[in-house]
């Protein structure tokens, strides 16, 4: 039997425990009520101090524990800890609630009109002719071609004679040429680059030559005395006309889309034999006929052929050992077709409203 039972204060002792228990429960209820009503972080801090601080209510209740017996202390101690833990959780909860609501308020204050235009950097644009030339160049770089360049003011020899177009050849009329003097011209085609390459390099040769060329055509919606060509040349042992067809097929698919088909028609160029004009199936209608292809389903894009044996010989390449093919495409016509440009003059006028569309 506990000694205190002997004590006549036994009942008052019971009352003290009861009282402490009640006090703790009161603190719990009161704090819970006050916490639920709190609206600001500072208030919350005040409440924390009030209930849990060194001079707070819970502490002052616990101070009375000294009057309890050793058996009673753990009982009240446990209860006090439960209350503390409960309050700490509640405070944390309230804190979260307050932080959230304060953040929400801030977010609400910070609403902007997201439909106001963004701050843009002005980017420059690539000229449509460069776009076309670059795309064509890319396709052939991928097939192992190098890019060759040559002069625009060119010797008659490279522009004509070495290409099997002697003086007074009727083919010279077809391309009205600008002359500087009897022996120097503004190149009327990029083919002289082929001659220069073949004369300076041994086969295998795989080049494309993009460049500016000149013909004496008055300026109008479809003609310009200055325009751009991209020519290709392959010379090696055993190059066949079938290889030309295959190469042009890949090229057409690369430039005009995977479903593009090509068609070769016999033609005449002095520097190739056999020669062909090459049509691609219309990129607008796919070949069924429309306004773009003038209902033909095909659009002429290229000239091509097997390098003429006389041209090979002129470049010191034996046509009985080597053969080759060449082809040429006009950048202006391609760009006009690709981008639906109806007047060639736009390409050289450089109106910013035009340029910025590309």
């Amino acid at each position, binding site marked *: 039997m506990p000694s205190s039972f002997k004590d006549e204060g036994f009942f008052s002792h019971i009352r003290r425990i009861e009282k402490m228990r009640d006090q703790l429960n009161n603190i719990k209820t009161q704090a819970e009520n006050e916490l639920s009503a709190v609206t600001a972080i500072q208030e919350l801090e005040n409440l924390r101090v009030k209930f849990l601080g060194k001079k707070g209510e819970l502490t002052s209740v616990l101070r009375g524990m000294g009057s309890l017996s050793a058996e009673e202390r753990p009982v009240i101690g446990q209860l006090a800890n439960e209350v503390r833990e409960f309050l700490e959780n509640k405070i944390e909860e309230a804190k979260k609630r307050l932080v959230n609501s304060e953040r929400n308020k801030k977010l609400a204050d910070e609403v902007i009109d997201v439909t106001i235009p963004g701050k843009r*950097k*002005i*980017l*420059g644009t*690539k*000229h449509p002719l*460069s776009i076309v030339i670059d795309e064509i160049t890319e396709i*052939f*770089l991928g097939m*192992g*071609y*190098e*890019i060759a360049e040559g*002069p*625009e*003011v*060119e010797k008659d020899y490279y522009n004509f004679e070495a290409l099997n177009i002697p003086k*007074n050849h*009727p083919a010279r*009329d*077809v391309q009205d040429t*600008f*002359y*500087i003097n009897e022996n*120097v011209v*503004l190149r009327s085609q990029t083919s002289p680059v082929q001659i220069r390459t073949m004369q300076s390099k041994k*086969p295998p040769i*795989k080049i494309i030559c993009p460049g*500016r060329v000149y013909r*004496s055509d008055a300026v109008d919606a479809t003609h310009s*005395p*200055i325009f751009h060509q991209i020519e290709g040349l*392959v010379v*090696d*042992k*055993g*190059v*066949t*006309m*079938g*290889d030309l*067809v*295959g190469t042009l097929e890949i090229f057409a698919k690369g430039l005009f889309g995977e479903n593009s088909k090509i*068609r*070769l*028609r*016999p*033609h*005449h160029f002095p520097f190739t*034999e*056999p020669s062909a*004009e090459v049509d691609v199936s219309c990129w607008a209608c796919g070949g069924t006929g429309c306004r773009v292809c003038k209902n033909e389903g095909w659009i002429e894009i290229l000239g091509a052929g*097997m390098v*003429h044996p006389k041209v090979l010989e002129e470049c010191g390449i034996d*046509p009985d050992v080597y*053969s080759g093919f060449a082809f040429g495409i006009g950048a202006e016509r391609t760009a006009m077709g690709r981008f639906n440009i109806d007047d060639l003059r736009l*390409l050289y006028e*450089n*109106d*910013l409203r035009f340029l910025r569309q590309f």
Partner: protein
Amino acid sequence: MKVPISWLNDYVDINVKPEELADALTMSGSKVESVEKLGEDISNVVVGKIISLEKHPNADKLQVSQVDIGRGTIQVVTGAQNISVGDYIPVALVGSTLPGGVKISKGKLRGIESNGMMCSGKELNLTEEDYPGAGEYGILILENGLTVGQDIKEALGLSDTVLDFEITSNRPDCLSILGMARETAVTLGVPLRKPEIKVEKEEDDVNEYASVEVRDPDLCPRYSARVVKDVKIEPSPKWMRDRLKAAGVRPINNIVDITNFVMLELGQPMHAFDLEYVKSKKIVVRRAYENETIKTLDDQDRKLDTDMLVIADGERAVAVAGVMGGANSEILDTTKTILFESANFSGSSVRITAKKLGMRTEASSRFEKGLDVENTINAVDRAVQLVEMLGAGKVCKGIIDCYPRKAEKKAIKFRPDRMNQFLGTSIESDFMVNVFRRLEFTVDEKQMLVTVPSFRPDVEREADLAEEVARFYGYNKIEATLLSGKSSTLGRKTFKQKIEDKIKNTMMACGLSEIYTYSFTSTKVFDLVNIPADSQLRKTIVISNPLGEDYSIMRTTTLPEMLETISINYNRRIEEGRFFDLAHVYLPKDTNAGELPEEKPVLTLGMYGNIDFYEIKGVLEELMDNLGITNYEFQPLKDNPSFHPGRTAYLIINGKNAGVVGEIHPEVAEKNEVPQRTYLSTVDVLALVENSNLSVNYKALPKYPAVSRDIAMLVKDEILVKQIEDTIRQYSGKILENIKLFDIYKGKQVPDGMKSIAYNITFRADDRTLTDEEVGKAMNKVLNGLKNNLDAQLRE
């Protein structure tokens, strides 16, 4: 080359529709540019004969006519005034259609029924060229004696389909109906029927009437001629006129029409001389005398020179050989005796002559392609045969034929295997031989030799034979293969090409749009950009045959085109523009020594709008940075006449002048109609290429903190920022990391002639944290340097 299908049908049986024929010929090498169906939009219009004409009871200007249309008479009300009873006229019957989609229906005109419409030439879409009188106002009066009720298209020769071919310069043989018939026959696989050429009756000997002497056989390898006497000049018959018209040639009279008919049919240009006007009855083929003149058929006086070949008589020139006849021997209505010339002239001689005289004729454009020397006899025989057929005169016996050196025939070795190897095909040798034979080549199968007919000068070697085989085999039957890559090549750009790409990309990233400009220009542009009269830039490559003064020289500066671009945009009210052009200038070298000019790539920048000098300079700095060029600087440039003397700089790379950047001179701005604040720059692209460094070497990120100090100072106005920065660099030692200008100020608190400049200077060492002491020492040196060297007053 216009080919009426009806004419083609004389020599080859065409068993396909015109469109299919056009496709087939296009794919075998004769490109059809258009298929024209004559009279396609005319239907149910017939020949009518006016039986009676009465005044309309209710209208003064109308007449009521009864018209015989063969199967009856119809009543037509007309407003026409140029018709009389007995006239043959075209009548559009009820339900007919006319060009332009007009439909004729039954109707009443002022109460009187009208069952058709008489047509004018215009309503049938005819011109005076098509039919005499068709160009006149009023109803087309047809020639008498037509069959009443006949379809008007037959009556006018409009029922044909005409194919228009683009004939390439190497195939003069295709500039003839017979040549196209040959192509058609091989393409369709049907036989070719050549016309049978013979004369039934001949009188007198040709030598009694004329003689021919060829003095310059180098320019005239062959001259053949025949004579016709008792000529009766009259219109040629309808069938011949219809053919000529369909082929695009205007009928004139029987003799001229015959020469044109033979030219179209056989491809040999012909000429007919009135022998009465050929003095001494002698034809002399010779070079023209110095300053000789001739009046040609078009009534123009032509001055000739000694390079030109003429046909002369005993005294004077009567024709420019192969180009045009002379007015002095022209066929007239009174002509009695004629000489038909069927000659072969040197193509290049005719070409040069026609070019010099500025008269390209049907004949000259044929001769200059090089015609078949063996065709002259056939042609002249065909001409006299037609004379006989048409009853246009009596043919004299014999041919005058001057042909001193007979042309040799070419034989080409032919290796079917090699050809298949070349084409990437496996075509049977029989197929090849068959193609050659059908093209009238002779094949010796034992020796594998192909002999080429004289009308095919374009076929010279095996590759040419391969083309003949390929085009009839079908180009599109050749199997597409890939290059067999025995020796593969590496596809890549050169360093220069890579730098050019990088330049373009940097420009675009900086907001500049690429432009393309003409590389030839006018001599006037030098004044427009204030280039001095004695400047090297005025020495240019001159085009000898330019399109006009505006395009007459190759440019030596790109400024004018950039200014023009800015002007165009500015004048179209575009507020702001940034452009670049990567193109060439053309600097002449010693052309007498046969040297080509230097084609120098130049990068040109142009900007206007809300822009200042430092923006365009910033673009160049970005460019230097992107190209890995570090050794560059800008130095004031005060005496470039195109630019503002106080707002322009040289770009110096590695100690060498590599470009200019600045504001355009106000005078230049005015002259070129661009804003005053227009900024331009030109940069030598090769200098960029030479000094670029694209290799990247990673540098370790700093491990120790940086220390930064701000300083502000007062300096005299003329002190350049560059001098200050050079001084800071010089005195701050190895630990200097960066100098950043953050303020330049003039105005209150700054004395006149001075400016306040503020810098942020950052120090850092790779191997330690810098102490205050170290930094303080360096700063002291810097401050002393600024004070001593630049007289800078430091501001606290």
